[in-house]
């Protein structure tokens, strides 16, 4: 993985020192909250419903064991013993006192981590496929380009005060696991005539005005991508709506200008950029960054494993876990393991200090020291030998991390909701957990197959409800929580926005309604291999809507 050079180290350490002074002045009252707020946000510090929240960047979702152990230590020493992994592959601590944050940032800097650009109207953490570097279906490892984009966008002076926040996602696999079409910029790395380049999508996003991104250029050669991003950002920075926060995202600009006119302006800016400022990354520098992401030296293994087969035969729960939580690796004899942070009854995406330490240990012992965070709020061990899977599962299961539910109905994306969030209108976690209970039987869940439920506690859509196969959106109606149900969303290469299917339901009615929809699917599917989303798209929403609202 990438290691800081002297510039990174200096930037981060100077920022910690600067923020320490700002916090001291805030605590003394020399800075008012109005003066301090933009400063704290630039350092990932929010003030939430009950406490300050610190969001820490995990660039493209990659962690070393040392870093994860440090996060565990922070959880234990400065929080309440847990952290929350987010849909942008970051981590949030929900109970850190302001007076402790400079110390926390110092400890993070020691392990090459920070909270810079995790908030504010700037370019945020670049996210990617959590199986990057391991997936069979990728054309190249996208992390090197994520790192190049990180370096380009960090403290970029022209883009530090954009009209609104800006999120970039990158994938290099045909099956999009990074939800690129619901990002401000989505980049799909492709190869054409031996040249690596980027298919560029712009203007996707969720929130109160969801949009699927427009394809603005089918192929930008890699040598020109930073210039192209400059052009995208410059048009946005110039014409993005600064007069209205709710219309300030790039999706609104693309929509209001129209795709054709937006593309024309970007291409014009791009041509001007190439003629004048032109960012020419030296090939040696690109190669240097790529070298950080060299594949691990995996020992040669047979494509199948007798130990694995024997363990599966002996333990049905382990066998089920292998059917759900493994992803094919590009090297024979290995798999990528999803460590589910969605056990029944626990807030989705939460991990305790000891669980983080366990995953760090397992990564060191069995996983070539590599850990990822997925946008679905799980952890990944991308390189595990098939022979080692029984031991890995045994350790995970003993720590409450053995849920066999990756991409299944209890593996929900859920925002913190009104239990934590100052923006939320309704709680997300309790309704998600109530739905989870209905599907807690592992055999039943396995029979249902792949089904994404995403839950948000307000229209800002941090829980990605627009792109869940089933979306749940919490609203506040005169002091009472109601939940609107959406059907038909998806975040993959066939990205689509779900549709609200009818009036909101009371919290207590949501689990039964979801159960009716799922049962309807099970009676209608052509075979157990037809996924929920495929049945829904084949039959249309109307029949599912009737099932949803049928008298319970």
């Amino acid at each position, binding site marked *: 993985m990438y290691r800081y050079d002297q510039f990174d180290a200096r930037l981060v350490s100077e920022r910690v020192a600067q923020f320490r002074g700002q916090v001291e002045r*805030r*605590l*003394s*009252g020399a*800075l*008012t*909250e109005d003066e301090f707020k933009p400063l704290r946000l630039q350092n990932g510090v929010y*003030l*939430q*419903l*009950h*406490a*300050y929240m610190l969001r820490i960047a995990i660039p493209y979702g990659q962690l070393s064991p040392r870093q994860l152990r440090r996060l565990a230590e922070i959880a234990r020493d400065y929080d*309440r*013993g*847990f952290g929350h992994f987010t849909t942008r592959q970051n981590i949030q601590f*929900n*109970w*850190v*006192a*302001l*007076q402790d944050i400079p110390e926390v940032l110092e400890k993070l800097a020691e392990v090459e981590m920070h909270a810079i650009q995790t908030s504010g109207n700037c370019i945020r953490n670049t996210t990617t496929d959590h199986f990057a570097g391991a997936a069979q279906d990728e054309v190249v490892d996208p992390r090197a380009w994520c790192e190049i984009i990180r370096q380009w966008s960090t403290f970029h002076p022209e883009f530090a005060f954009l009209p609104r926040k800006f999120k970039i996602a990158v994938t290099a696999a045909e099956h999009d696991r990074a939800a690129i079409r619901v990002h401000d910029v989505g980049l799909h790395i492709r190869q054409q005539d031996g040249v690596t380049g980027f298919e560029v999508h712009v203007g996707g996003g969720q929130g109160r005005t969801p949009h699927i991104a427009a394809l603005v250029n089918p192929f930008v050669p890699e040598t020109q991508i930073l210039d192209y991003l400059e052009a995208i950002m410059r048009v946005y920075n110039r014409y993005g709506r600064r007069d209205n926060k709710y219309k300030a995202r790039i999706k609104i600009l693309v929509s209001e200008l129209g795709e054709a006119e937006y593309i024309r302006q970007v291409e014009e800016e791009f041509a001007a950029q190439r003629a004048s400022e032109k960012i020419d990354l030296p090939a040696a520098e690109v190669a240097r960054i790529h070298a950080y992401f060299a594949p691990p030296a995996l020992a040669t293994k047979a494509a199948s494993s007798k130990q694995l087969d024997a363990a599966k035969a002996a333990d049905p729960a382990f066998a089920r876990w292998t059917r759900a939580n493994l992803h094919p690796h590009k090297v024979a004899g290995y798999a990528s393991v999803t460590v589910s942070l969605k056990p029944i*009854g*626990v*807030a989705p995406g*939460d991990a*305790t200090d000891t669980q983080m330490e366990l995953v760090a240990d397992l990564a060191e012992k069995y996983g070539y020291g590599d850990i990822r965070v997925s946008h679905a709020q799980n952890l990944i061990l991308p390189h595990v030998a098939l022979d080692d899977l029984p031991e890995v599962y045994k350790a995970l299961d003993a720590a409450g991390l053995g849920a066999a539910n990756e991409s299944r109905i209890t593996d929900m994306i859920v925002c913190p909701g*009104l*239990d934590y969030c*100052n*923006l939320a*209108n*309704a*709680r997300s*976690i*309790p309704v998600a*957990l109530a739905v989870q209970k209905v599907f807690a039987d592992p055999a039943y869940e396995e029979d249902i197959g792949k089904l994404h439920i995403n839950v948000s506690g307000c229209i800002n859509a941090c829980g990605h409800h627009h792109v869940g196969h089933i979306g749940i959106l919490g609203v*506040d109606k*005169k*002091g*009472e*929580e109601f939940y609107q149900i959406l059907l038909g969303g998806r975040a993959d290469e066939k990205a689509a926005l779900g549709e609200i299917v009818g009036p909101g339901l009371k919290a207590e009615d949501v689990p039964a309604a979801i159960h009716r929809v799922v049962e309807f699917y099970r009676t209608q599917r052509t075979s157990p291999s037809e996924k929920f989303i495929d049945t829904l798209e084949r039959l249309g929403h109307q029949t599912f809507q009737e099932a949803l609202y049928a008298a319970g």
Partner: protein
Amino acid sequence: MSSVRPKLKPETPKAVTGWATATGRSVWLRADGTWTEEAGLLGVFTGDEAEARLAAALKQEAVVTDPYFMEVTADGKIAGRETLRESMRAEPTLSFGGAA
């Protein structure tokens, strides 16, 4: 902060709440002028006294952040349009970090 705070009539009973600047914990103003992390101990104010209490709180930048009025009943129970949000602040229903 986030929610659009309702304008309350002078005679409406209200409390003053905000966040402790050092820790970020939710706090409520007691009748004796001190701050408490227990919503059950909040002071109830009306009219000019309420305005004076909030004005004083706004000057305590080092102690409390972003103080504002929240509607309560005469006996200090949370009331009004923001009942759901304020109830969550006062009495969380989630076991944070544990099994929910």
